[in-house]
């Protein structure tokens, strides 16, 4: 596990030429495949720690590859998609992808997403129940939220929404994922609930709610909580 193995399934040779050396240079082991069939075979034989999956493959729909991967692997999958394919992104995320990158993307963005995706999903509630960053401190065990050291009072739903975002550890959560986690099954139609609660969370936890640094909106996709915002 010292050198996580990343499998790239991408048919564009120029992208592979950029991805392979970039990731190798960051001490990752890299495998690459140009077709869905090849990619799935490699995934089975090498069991990579993360898969970078392009949605537009020549032989099979990327979504089908994702579904098949998910039948036997829980390892993180990051989708590479063209811009403006919000619906595909949401579908892929709801099908079990962990995150997505819209082309064109830069090396820094790519590495950041991979770092986030490789963090263990359950790290938050197993290793350390307390997460903090950007002046916010959230104690999942004590159910306590502090902003710049002062306790912040959240309503039950606000807290559950915050917790759902925290547990994703910086990865994007789609609207429907958040709705079903916070409001339970059947809440999917009420995206506006989610938006109103997100606005209330921002009012309580963001310095300037119109310039959110932590509660990031991914338009038409969902939200992500970014507590490391100070870096960039």
């Amino acid at each position, binding site marked *: 596990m010292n050198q996580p193995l990343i499998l790239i399934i991408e048919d564009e040779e120029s992208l592979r030429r950029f991805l392979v050396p970039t990731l190798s240079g960051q001490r990752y082991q890299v495998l690459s495949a140009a077709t869905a069939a090849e990619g799935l075979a490699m995934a089975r034989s090498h069991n990579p720690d993360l898969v970078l999956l392009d949605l537009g493959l020549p032989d099979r729909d990327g979504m089908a590859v994702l579904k098949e991967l998910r039948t036997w692997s829980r390892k993180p999958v990051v989708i590479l998609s063209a*811009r*403006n394919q*919000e619906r595909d992104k949401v579908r892929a995320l709801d099908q079990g992808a962990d995150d997505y990158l819209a082309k*064109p993307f*830069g090396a820094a963005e790519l590495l950041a997403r991979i770092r986030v995706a490789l963090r263990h999903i359950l790290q938050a509630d197993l290793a350390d129940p307390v997460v903090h960053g950007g002046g916010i401190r959230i104690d999942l065990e004590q159910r306590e939220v502090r902003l710049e050291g002062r306790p912040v009072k959240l*309503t039950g*739903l606000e807290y559950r929404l915050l917790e759902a975002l925290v547990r994703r550890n910086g990865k994007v959560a789609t609207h429907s994922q958040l709705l079903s986690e916070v409001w339970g099954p059947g809440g999917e139609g*009420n*995206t*506006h*609930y989610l*938006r*109103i*609660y*997100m*606005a*209330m969370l*921002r009012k309580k936890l963001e310095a*300037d*709610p*119109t*310039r*959110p*640094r932590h509660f*990031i*909106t*991914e*338009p*038409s996709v969902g939200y992500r909580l970014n507590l490391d915002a100070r870096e*960039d």
Partner: protein
Amino acid sequence: MAAAPRPVLVALGSEARALRLIQAGFRLAQERSVPWIAVHVELGGVDLAEDGEQAEVWLQEAQRLGAEIRIVQAPTLAQGLSEAVRSSRAQALLIGRSRDRWPWARVGHSTANELLRRGLDARIEVLDDRRGSPGSDPARTGFGAMVGTLAVLAACTGVAWLVPREGNISLVLPVYLAAVTFIAHHWSQGLAVLASVMSALLYSFLLETPRFSQVDAHWPNLLFFLAMLFAAQAVVGLLHRLRQQAREVERREVHTASLYLLGRALGRGRTPEEVATTAAEHLRRVFKVEAHLLFPEGSSWRALPSPGPLLDLPPPEALLPRLDAGERLGDPLEPLPLGRAHCLSLLGTDRSEGVLLVQPRESSAPPPETWELLKAFAVQIALALERLRWLEEARKAQLENETERMRSTLLGAIGHDLRTPLAAIHGAAGSLLLPGDLPPATQRDLLTMIQDESERLAHLLGNLLDLTRLESGALQVQKEWQPLEEVVGSALGRLERRQGPLPVHVDLPESLPLVPLDAALMEQVLVNLLTNAQRHAPGKDIELRAWGEPGWVHLEVADRGPGIPAPFLDRIFDKFFRLPGAGEGGVGMGLAICRAIVLAHGGSVHAEHRPGGGSRFRVALPLDGTAPAPPEGSP
């Protein structure tokens, strides 16, 4: 020569029934697969100029249907026709029976009879088109009429009996005159002739004194009596014809007027639906029929105006060929009977525009003499539909032109903007690959340039794609009710992540309602407006504010840039429009994208001068529909 088929000859005059003769001739020639000839006889000096012109029209119509045209000059019709028959070796001659002849002229002296007498080697067919014409109901010469005639005569004789006469014919005559007139008027001229003879006999046997004497004693009186009665009868016949003509003229006037009204109403139709509704209305009024326009749609019919006809129609592939068969029979508009209904092809100039289906509301079909008018209606409707189709085609052509023009503008405008960053990237990469060491600072410079320029390229391409997809309608607006704040936040976030903090002052009132919008698209609008403001007023403050009014939410991005000259305030939203002297920067797509997105939301966007300098862009978004209920427990 002997093997050549003998043609069919059709004699055309100037009368309207010539059209039927033409069709009959065409049909006959088709049946026998022989050529046919339309012949017109010019009677030296007798024809009127108008008649000649009308005959010309019919001849042309015949020519259209493949007839050979022949004009013969002769002293009489029969002579001219027989010459034509002989010279063409025709196997059959079609002539129409004239309505405009004296009754006695029909007996023995008609052109047909004269031709028969001439012993021509051709069958002579007389097309009797009087059937079904007004005022010639065959029932009127039936048994009832006969009894009526006898009753009237008996009554007259009774009355005359009572009149003191003493050998004075002048007292009896008016009674019989009245009776004969009545009979001629009410029943038929044949009966009136019979009644005249009977009256004369009755008079001489019963009324002339001494009674029951030999007829020859009263010859002078009897002859006088008979002559008077025939004269009366002739006058009645004349009147009758005049009345028929007057009725015909009246009917035509009504037809012309209804055609005019239809034409005018159809001219206002802008869609096939409107045309169909208008047509159905007029047809219902004039013919008392239910009418529908049918348009083939795959293997079924689309009927307008809906609800469609209740009739089980054969599918288009079965019905259309049968309608086309009408063309083979000389009249493409000939109605095709279909149960109780009739179908007429709506023939435009170059193709069929659809099918007109008429169903009589009462049990009886419209009388035959209205078919011509119905056909005229069909032609009008077809022309109206054709006009619509042509308009649509013209519109499409114009659109294609526009698109073509746009494409060339695009190539011109984009070419330069795409090539510049590409040249920079290509150049920088080339220098990095040159042998020899570059100082690390220079290397870094070049690499940064590659990154910046490729981002610029990506941005440009993104805009181009957005615009294309927005304009082609491929991009669907997915509105969801959400706080405006979130869109503002993500737009600012996107910009500031890219280029650091921006001097944007945001003023969103707490009381703003949820707004139905497509978050991804509206974010694009805000990003474009803010980028635009930043480009024209670099480093200066930008105000972003929003306010609500009933039914609408307004959003404003205001800058302190140089402002937009008044003539360009409207044009800056046009594709590829750049302010003169604006220098490098955008390609004139950002604002066009804004407008396309806002319009797709049902809103509006405009630019105006900002008091105190600069410009401001205002977006109005409709709050259409009802906002969803806020979740429980929210403030």
